[in-house]
């Protein structure tokens, strides 16, 4: 008898002797991620109400094609397939989407919540076969650092959006005047939270110094490594806060644009 076969046999799906409510956490993750996926997909396909005054929804930033007066490269590109509804968000959302999809924290969370692999620690799984991240398709998760590079660039764009969100057009003179509104704060908090999440990335932690064994010989790498490690310790918290806030930021801009919310001036 093989060594592994001699241990106590596996049981049916969901069986465990744990008396606690082990299913609560994966259920909350399932609900939280599902709600975000549904909302962000809906918002991405709207293609409207993503801009109000100086605000641009983070789901649509950077706006590569779209509103001809604001976008980088003009209106809807000619090569866009006719069968697919056009939305500027569809051109860029693959970056933050891919970054989160391949994130080490989210991977562990959605393998449990969506695939029951395992449903929770010491809880039996629904299937016998297992390939993990050792073969296709999940071996593709190793692409995470490439999404990180682009996500870091997106932080610059979102930071620039916050700067632009501080300049409001005077309705009488048409001149742009400095001001801080509630929407400015919403977009600024979004960048801070996304920054906390991105700067705590496990791949970034490795790239800035984690891959070096004698960090004392590279003081700049050592300091950066310590800083990223500091964010990394609360990676899960940053992940959820930034996920919630980015959706809220889109909702805020959308409500302002649709007239459902009055943006309050603070300064």
């Amino acid at each position, binding site marked *: 008898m093989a060594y592994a076969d001699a*241990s106590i046999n596996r049981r049916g799906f969901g069986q465990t002797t744990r008396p606690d409510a082990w299913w609560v956490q994966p259920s909350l993750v399932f609900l939280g991620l599902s709600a975000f996926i549904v909302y962000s997909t809906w918002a991405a396909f709207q293609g409207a109400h993503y801009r109000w005054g100086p605000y641009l929804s983070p789901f649509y930033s950077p706006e590569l094609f779209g509103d001809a007066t604001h976008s980088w490269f003009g209106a809807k590109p000619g090569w866009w397939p006719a069968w697919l509804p056009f939305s500027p968000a569809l051109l860029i959302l693959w970056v933050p989407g891919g970054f989160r999809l391949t994130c080490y924290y989210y991977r562990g969370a959605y393998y449990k919540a969506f695939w029951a692999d*395992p449903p929770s620690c010491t809880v039996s799984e629904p299937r016998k076969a297992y390939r993990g991240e050792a073969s296709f398709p999940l071996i593709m998760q190793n692409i995470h650092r490439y999404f990180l590079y682009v996500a870091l660039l997106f932080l610059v764009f979102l930071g620039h959006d916050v700067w632009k969100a501080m300049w409001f057009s005077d309705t009488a003179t048409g001149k742009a005047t400095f001001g801080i509104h509630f929407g400015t704060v919403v977009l600024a908090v979004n960048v801070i939270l996304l920054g906390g999440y991105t700067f705590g990335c496990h791949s970034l932690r490795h790239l800035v110094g984690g891959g070096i064994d004698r960090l004392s010989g590279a003081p700049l790498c050592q300091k950066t490594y310590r800083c990223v490690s500091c964010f990394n310790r609360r990676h899960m918290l940053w992940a959820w806060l930034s996920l919630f806030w980015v959706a809220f930021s889109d909702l805020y801009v959308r409500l302002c644009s649709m007239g459902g919310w009055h943006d309050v001036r603070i300064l």
Partner: protein
Amino acid sequence: MKTATFKIWRGDANGGKFVDYTTEVSEGMVVLDAVHRIQATQANDLACRWNCKAGKCGSCSAEVNGLPRLMCMTRLNDLPLDKPVTLEPMKAFPHVKDLVTDVSWNFRAKKKIKPFKPRPPDTPDGTWRMAQSDVDRVQEFRKCIECFLCQNVCHVLREHKLHDEFIGPRFFVQVAALEMHPLDIEDRTEELKQAHGIGYCNITKCCTKVCPEGITITDNAIIPLKERVVDNFYDPLGKLVKLFRPKAQK
């Protein structure tokens, strides 16, 4: 005196069942104390492995209420004693008797790891110099007491029985301790990818949750090792950059 009921798995490799034992419990008792009391008063033949009673030998690993724990470090006042406390042997390893399992596979798996290979000595007297900050990082991994709770909770071993293809979290910690050591110059990434099967880990973090020494196994050992594997096998851009960069210290 207060009493509590313990449902203890009794049996051997051929099968077994839960048997209820009700025993007196008092303030300050841990699960191992209760097991010893049951052993002394009700079930003299109850098999249970233990040694230090201080959370340092890693012998009394078992599953308390379905979660891998050291029996000597699990205080009864942390458990809901109004319901029976379930005690089972670890499930990732062959069952021997009652709460005892055969953990010998771990020692065979350990032998697969390439040993420490230091760089040539830094000084003519044959000694090396290391910065404390560099040693601090691997010091965390040295806390491991080899209780194998992390191996037991890992679903790759526990559920999928991939003992031949996957060395488990305990030994990723061991590899991390060697691989990140400031003196070590051995490269273990090929073995990590192939023989050690690091790709099977899907980052559930269960190993980190059960570690009695509080080692951040997933974030500080497994993920950094996964990233080193990415460096060598899945990052063509990184390889290209390295071609044009002065060789960094390993």
